[in-house]
């Protein structure tokens, strides 16, 4: 019991991190798309908990609000309209790509590890302290995120929003089956 109280944060971290990874594995292994989507939902929520553990409450709330509450709902919306009963599972696709996926995962993991190592060496400390260092006298991380987003990273922030807009317009164009027909002079299908 004393051990649990003393290391509560670490115990919580490893439990939640394991749950997040389990969710990620579930996404790629579960046969049914709705179950896979639920596993992804679990990962999103668990990552939000990890944010809370690092005192990034704002990010955690936004993570749940945007990913869990918005994007996953739309995913489910699309998945639910597909009829799975008659579909054959495609075994070849997954098994062919597995070695590449494992290699990619290992590479990504080592990049992140190197990044954390370099970051810790540069600032002397990682995590929440580095986060707090961005704004000199800012009380909460909501203000800190806003401050950094609208000063230091204003240009990347705006560029990303334009990229998202382009993606949205592209999706609308792809989604319009009658794009050719709706031109002036084109025929309109009944």
């Amino acid at each position, binding site marked *: 019991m004393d051990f649990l109280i003393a290391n509560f944060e670490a115990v919580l971290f490893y439990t939640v991190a394991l749950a997040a990874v389990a969710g990620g594995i579930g996404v790629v292994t579960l046969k049914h798309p*709705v*179950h896979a989507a*639920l596993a992804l*939902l679990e990962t999103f*929520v668990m990552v939000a908990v990890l944010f809370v553990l690092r005192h990034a*409450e*704002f990010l955690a*709330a*936004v993570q*749940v*609000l945007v990913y*869990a*509450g*918005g994007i996953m*709902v*739309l995913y*489910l*919306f699309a998945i*639910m*309209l597909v009829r799975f009963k008659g579909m054959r599972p495609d075994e070849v696709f997954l098994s062919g790509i597995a070695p590449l996926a494992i290699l990619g995962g290992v590479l990504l993991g080592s990049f992140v590890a190197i990044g954390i190592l370099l970051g810790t060496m540069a600032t002397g400390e990682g995590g929440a302290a580095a986060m707090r260092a961005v704004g000199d006298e800012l009380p*909460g991380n*909501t203000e800190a995120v806003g401050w950094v987003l609208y000063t230091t990273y204003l240009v990347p922030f705006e560029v990303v929003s334009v990229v998202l807009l382009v993606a949205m317009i592209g999706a609308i164009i792809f989604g319009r089956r009658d794009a050719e027909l709706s031109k002036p002079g084109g025929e309109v299908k009944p």
Partner: protein
Amino acid sequence: MTDPLMLSLGIPLIKGVVILGVLLLTVAYLTFAERKILAYMQVRIGPNRVGPKGWLQPIADGLKLFVKEDLIPGSAERFVFMLAPILIFAPAILVWAVIPWGEPFSLAGVEITPFLADVNIALLFVIAVSSIGIYGIILGGWASNNKFSLMGGLRSAAQLVSYEVPMGFAVVAVVLMAGTLSLVGIVEAQRAAGLWFIVPGILAFGIYFICGVAETNRNPFDLPEAEAELVAGFHTEYSGMKFAFFYLAEYANMLVVSSLAVILFFGGWLRPFPNLEILGFLDLIPPFFWYAAKVLAFIFVYIWFRGTFPRYRFDQLMQIGWKWLLPLSLANVMLVALGVLLVKG
């Protein structure tokens, strides 16, 4: 009683149990209030058989649902079917961890704060956690393997995603005025301003409440469970306690939307004109009762809506959300931001 572990663990635990108890009892009696008020509006008598004047009706309903046979349709997706009521009920309860309901008071020498946690992002927390509740509806509708349920679930998903956006912008207007995301901080900002935020935020309040009614799937936005076309929508196949969870969650969500409306726009537990000395006699009524009275007034408006309005058509619903409320809420954010800039400099 002064043991630090006892203070840091015991008091929140007791508070949590009390909140849960009061919440569930209130929710149970809201169903009774709804039936009685609707009956009055339709010149009927309403439930009057169980107990004096029908006052034990919610208890009887609860008992009935508790002992009722729990059916799972043969072709349903079992796991998701069982998960859905939990997914809708848990968020509706969870948000009460951060919703404050009064002023700090002391009991037997121990300072007690009227909330489980004053998180600095409480408002975002409530909105984010509420948005998880959608899953209960969509997954419940899908897992039932029933076309009416699926249609109800799909309608609900579209409706909730559409109305979440203007609701968020309406709330942003309040955050701009208060300068904080903490719910306690927002009420304190209204005390400092000597004014409920309904006065400068009348437009934001209108948008917020319309969206709130839509988010809780209540009339005139109750298309996900439109009985004339969809039987009972997403919970057609549910019975017993699972059905009760959907039902309770709807009422708990009504309470959340009403409480948030009271905290954001009507000064929470503050009396009217909190800075006017001449109205000091109003302080005789404890803060909690101000709060409860305002919340119940909103609940009455909800029921009043149900007794008054016909249901919208689905395309009308989408038009109101995207073509009217969204631009209006964006314009409102601009206006409020300009106002805050002019006033605060």
